[in-house]
């Protein structure tokens, strides 16, 4: 079966790849493009570890076909720092110790960034419900929520 040639933009860079038509975007990102920051936790869309932005929408890359990336703009965790500086959310996660093993952290950061871009002043409840699609087993979510709310406050200035 001939593989498909896909042209897309990832973290601001144009890139292209070959893939099977039934391959997931997650698989291509990790295995072909070697952007291993996006993680596979469940491959059924239940854990959020594979979260990426696809044309400004927060999605699970494990439930997106790689061929659907054609002509689209993708953002992964590797693109989150700006000009060599950590994004405020990344800084706050470290400051608040909002990570332990860190495997869920990229997914949470992508999801939290998407939240704050839409709602710069979320309540604790809004943060928790927005992040319900990201599982964490180490932190109990406490410091993650604190870090997101602190980042939101700082981003509001």
């Amino acid at each position, binding site marked *: 079966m001939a593989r498909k040639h896909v042209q897309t933009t990832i973290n601001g860079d144009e890139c292209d790849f070959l893939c099977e038509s039934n391959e997931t975007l997650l698989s291509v990102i990790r295995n072909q493009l070697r952007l291993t920051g996006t993680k596979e936790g469940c491959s059924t869309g239940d854990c959020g570890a594979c979260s990426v932005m696809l044309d400004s929408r927060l999605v699970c890359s494990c439930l997106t076909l790689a061929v659907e990336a054609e002509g689209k703009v993708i953002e*992964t965790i590797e693109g989150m720092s700006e000009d060599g500086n950590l994004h405020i959310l990344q800084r706050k996660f470290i400051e608040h110790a909002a990570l332990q093993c*860190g495997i869920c952290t990229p997914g949470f950061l992508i999801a939290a960034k998407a939240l704050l871009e839409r709602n710069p002043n979320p309540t604790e409840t809004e943060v928790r419900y927005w992040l319900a699609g990201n599982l964490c*087993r180490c932190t*109990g979510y*406490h410091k993650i*929520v604190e870090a997101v709310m602190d980042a939101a406050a700082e981003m509001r200035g």
Partner: protein
Amino acid sequence: MSELVAYEEKNLKTIGTRPLRPDGVDKVTGRARYGADINLPGQLYGCVLRSPHAHARIKSIDISQAKALTGVKAVITSKDFEDMPSQVIPVGELVANFRDVTRNVMAREKVLYDGHAVAAVAATSESIAKKAINLIKVEYEILPHVIDVADAMKDDAPLLDEDQFTQGEIRVLGGDTTKEPVHDKPSNIAKRLTFVKGDIDSAFNEAHLVIERTFTTKPVHQGYIEPHAAVASYTEDGQVELYSCTQGHFTIRAQCAKLLSMDVSKIKVIPTELGGGFGGKNNVYLEPLAITLSKIARRPVKMVMSRNEVFRASGPSPAGRTYVKLGLNKKGKIIAADAQIDMQSGAFPGTPLGQATITCFTRYDIENVRVIGHDVISNRPKVAAYRAPGAPVAAFGVESVIDEAAKKLSIDPIDIRILNAAKEGTQTYYGVKFPRIGFEETLKKAKQHKNYQIPLKENQGRGVATGFWMNIGMDTTASLNVNDDGTIAVSVGTIDVAGGSRASLAMMVAEEFGIDSDKVRVTTGDTSQLGFNFVTAGSRGTFAGGIVSVLAARDAIEECKLRAAKTWNVKVEEVVWENGFARPASTNVGPFEPLSLSDIARNSTRTGGPIAGHCEKNVQGAGPSFGTQIVDVEVDKETGSVKILRHTIVQDAGKAIHPAYVEGQYQGGAVQGIGWALNEEYIYGVDGRLQNPGFLDYRVPVASDVPFIDVEIVEVPNPYHPYGVRGIGEVPIIPPTAAIANAINDAIGVRFETLPLSPPKVLAAIIGS
């Protein structure tokens, strides 16, 4: 026996502060490399064929079609593994029966659970490997299966092992340990362990109040977000390089070496960044398969479990049935305690029997105790440790009965526990006499906590429960090198199981030297770089890793003093080390300017060579940790839904090296406990297959399910750690199940004897009452 390292009260510069996590930047940028992120040139992809049956004899396996598929480079079955006779062997410090380990890694005569590995394949791509798996033909003779622990204990239960006869041991405090006569009928009960202290029968007769109940819990899984992954490269000279996501790379090495009849030195295990373990990553699953496939294919083989496989074929925690009987006097003092804890161990023996029985009543000072525990095999995956293994199963029952007693005697639930609390000098029923411990402190602080005073509204309730874990030390090593610019590199065998041990160890070393913690870099070495290190489990990472790091630092500091003495041409006794500098011990010694660590390091070639320190120790003196938790709930009486309003943890850390990491451990463990209490369970069908091997229907808490978890760190220093550290990671998961059940009881007046406390159960109880 290694000596204990004493606690010293000091003014601390670094310990107790909150520097940024050294592994933080890698983790927030996605650079940290976990097992599945490793790729070796030329690697193949491995895939496992797993049994769809809970119990069956394997009649034949035909791998010919799989082998013939283009792109397949190796196919293995049990034929590729040596059988191991039944023999309990020390593997490092772990004890394992390799007859069982080899069978769990690859089924031999029988498959014993849904998901049991039967064959494995390595191919040039994942999709070819998956296709190949589907081409392997296995003929099974399906056998009756048994899963529930009570069913498995019955006389007429289907047997998993016709050669297993129950072994029993009775340990009487102050008396003998006797072995029970071996039964002549084979049984699924592998072991019975009994502890006896005093005379419970007379004591029960004298008791003013006797309560007895039987509780059951369901099996749960550690739920780490990172599936197991291993990448193995077996080269033509018989050497293996193995990347594994593990909590114990030395143990993995030992197990692989034994299973594959290799010298330990021929296997190098490189631990990858761990994406959660909680005890579930201490054992081999994929590693021997990946090595063997690589040996045949002569190429590296990468294997990653799917989430489905993690649930079905790694090491979840046991279900349990706990019988508890307490006898109390009028004042609420427990004078007699009896318990029987029956726990599944999955397909092979090895449930946390010792831990469940030891932790069962130990928080309390009770004169007359009997605890019986059973290790029972049944057709589900072999259990592994899950954060305080065994303790939550026992604590759910014990803490519920204490709560019931408190209510019946109209005593505050914290007061009744203070009355009975174990203290320094309390003689436990399993032998240990407690040194200085902090249980009472946590109870008293909990009682004073503002959350305990908040008035409750209608349909709301408050529950209290406590937990205890003995913690361990064990074999630990560290190698410390002073760099030529005066910064320090420490290589440890302690895996950072997410508790931030690399940071805490750096802080302890920095404290010893009197320098900033960002001048110390701690990395976990691979197995070729250090002496044997036990698995990072038992809450030993910061405790034991800390002790050897501190001793390695002291070793290096002695060397630094020697170098200063040489430079000044004085005796080493005339040099002291203070705040990062070597100084003359007094002005009498001479007018020498203090030498900093970097001064000494820069000069080290001239004074004798590079400066280092090291320590290898079977660490003793682990201090037990105790915790008290208060949970407030609100019950929706129309639907049975339970909402956690507030969750408070007061736990003794001995000394919180980095308070934020201690808080994080408390909060994370408590939320796992909340999941255990409310929603998590393995659901089996009548065919013995797991019905919910995924995160949709195996329901771990999400962010909107839990509130902020209020934490208070109590510090009663461990007398046997230089900074007073006690392991703390395991205790937090022990109290929540009972605390929540007690809170629901407080709200609606119904006592629950089974977990999880799911809405249908709660609603049925409300309607029924």
